[in-house]
């Protein structure tokens, strides 16, 4: 129908060429990420308001979180982002096998993060830090402390949902890459998935100091 469409089968019919398609997809993802910033933003606002109002209790409560697991997870996610960046490069250079390996590597690091998070949540439960599920607090203002943990679970939980979605996307991309879907300059999907993964990573980079480190000097 359109000459360009015949030349490159992965150019969708509404676009003139691969360049336009690539730019559109990238912009679309950036706009989506702006949406995500404001989605998380509501919880960040809640945190900020109560950190300001109940600073002392928030510091006390923050000390009970496991900095070692949190720190390890930060490292895991940062490395996963590096691997993701390599995947994008591999897709641009049309290196199929390497691309599959790197995408799976990123997904595995995501799974490591989720596993450590699960261990940590269990530990929190054993330590009676889960609001409404046997929450116990020795010290002043148990209500405010419960508020801190509510925010902690809401923010890390929402983040964990995003990580899980990301792992799913990476696995699907790895399968498609195996079938050679991203060859000949059609690396667009890998690139925008990379943007999403880096975003999820950056959210954690903000969560970690706000939740784990405020109590430490």
């Amino acid at each position, binding site marked *: 129908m359109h000459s360009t469409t015949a030349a490159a089968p992965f150019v969708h019919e509404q676009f003139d060429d691969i360049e336009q398609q690539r730019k*559109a997809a990238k912009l679309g993802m950036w*706009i989506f990420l702006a949406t995500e910033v404001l989605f*998380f933003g509501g919880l960040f606002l809640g945190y900020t308001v109560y950190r300001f109002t109940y600073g002392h209790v928030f510091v006390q409560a923050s000390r009970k979180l496991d900095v070692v697991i949190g720190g390890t997870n930060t490292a895991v996610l940062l490395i996963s982002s590096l691997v993701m960046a390599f995947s994008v490069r591999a897709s641009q250079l049309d290196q199929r096998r390497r691309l599959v390996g790197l995408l799976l590597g990123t997904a595995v690091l995501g799974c490591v993060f989720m596993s450590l998070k699960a261990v940590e949540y269990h530990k929190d439960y054993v330590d009676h830090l889960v609001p409404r599920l046997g929450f116990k607090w020795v010290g002043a203002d148990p209500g405010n402390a419960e508020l801190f943990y509510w925010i902690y679970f809401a923010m890390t939980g929402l983040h964990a949902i995003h990580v899980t979605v990301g792992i799913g996307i990476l696995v699907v991309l790895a399968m498609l890459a195996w079938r050679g879907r991203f060859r000949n300059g059609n690396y667009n999907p890998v690139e925008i998935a990379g943007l999403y993964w880096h975003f999820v990573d950056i959210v954690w980079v903000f969560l970690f100091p706000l939740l784990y480190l405020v109590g430490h000097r």
Partner: protein
Amino acid sequence: MKTATEIDIQTEGEMPRLHYLNVEIGVKSWLLTTDHKRIGILYLWTILVFFLIASVAAAMMRIELLTPQGDFVTNETYNKLFTIHGVLMVWFFLIPSIPTVLGNFVIPPMIGARDVAFPKLNLLSWYIFVAGGALTLWAIIHGGVDTGWTFYTPYSTTYANSHVITMAGGVFVAGFSSIITGMNFMTTIHKMRAPGLTWFRLPLFIWSMYATSVILVLATPVLAITLAVMCVERIWGVGVFDPKLGGDPILFQHMFWFYSHPAVYIMILPGMGVISELITCFSRKRIFGYGFVAAASMAIAVLGFLVWGHHMFVSGQSVYAGMVFSILSFLVAIPSAIKVFNWTATLHKGSIYFTTPMLYALGFIGLFTIGGMTGLFLATLAVDVHVHDSYFVIAHFHYIMVGGMVMAFMGGLHYWWPKITGRLYPEFAGKLAAMITFLGFNLTFFPQFILGYLGMPRRYHAYPPEFQLFNVLSTAGASILGVGYLLPLIYFLWSLKFGRVAGPNPWRATGLEWQTPSPPPKHNFEKTPTVTERPYGYSPEEDVDLHLASI
């Protein structure tokens, strides 16, 4: 000259053999379509259903308010009625109305594109919208919600004994449809414009849809997280709005209005875009001050994010915050007034044609001005304390949303109807409906300004007897307004079969969407057009005797 034009119209009054409506047929071809034009029509039918349900709720409220006593429905039912009316009208009619129906249909042809940037996501947005609507309807059928459309805490989280979670869930889900639509439109406008179509050659409807999309994308997620937190708090009894833990219910109001005030501009900016198209076409003149009208849309979108606190003047917010929000709210009047003055200046020395869309457009200017001016009363701290939560507020925002947005939606629907269906609606019936709507609207809502000023609070099903006269007037107006909405429904359906064939450009309008057959082919254009000049190249002198299509 005149005869030549008539002959011209007759020769082009033929339906194209193959167009987007008959290229594929059958239910499946509609449910799996990725054609932006068909998706626009899917949205049109869907929001019509919600509009009808919400209108019935409004009608029942107006019947109750005929008499001072609560004799038609109980106060509990009344609470549910205004919640249904508010939730459905705001999220399932007004917010999607112009963007998803007219925006979906005309944005791509207006910029010379074959489709939006993400056609599959576009279809997905409709399915998400239907899913959100279904959840909301489920909540209504199973007993409704009595919190009002604002879901204020702690009533919604702790005390309300109704289907709050399901209905808020419906709104939450529908929000993602808004986000996808906004994302799609922004990307389309950035990346899909025809060669030569620079930013300052864009029709003003595109500018206003761009400004709307920015709000959809940046405000909707805040509502989503707010409602999610509210629902978690209702289920688990713990959350950031929970006073038991030292949480603050007012935080909910901040977060809710951080979305919902910009959302008010989602409910007017698209209308302003439509009016800019109509005023130029039917006064046969280039718009006065193109750059200012375009910039005013963006200014409204930006300022809209900075004024949410004016909903909370009496919620215990600090006096200084109140003053800042008051000043910022006044600032919104500047871009709004720029638009009104520029439309008026466009009319000056134009060749004005009082067609149906033009009647709606002129109605819009008057009603929007009243709605906007009373908004300034409400932005004034001391006056707001007096009229807060009264019928004055109700009248104010209905002048903007119904007098503004719905008039613009109807005007735009009449204007692009020949493009959408290939047929003309009956002009006389159209004019009649436009005038009935205008009259009925004013009779419904003007008395409410007086009621509010005299002190009648909103959201009560009974009231002191001295308010009865104005309430009877308002109910009478509402029944006339109902006729004004039913008429177009009838003659639009009639025109699908019996309307005169329109031809590609019955209004002799400029703009790329009129350069393609009506209805357009699947990909809008046989050949991508090239743009070489500014929009609205109308000439009032040449068009003095123009024979515009009518039936």
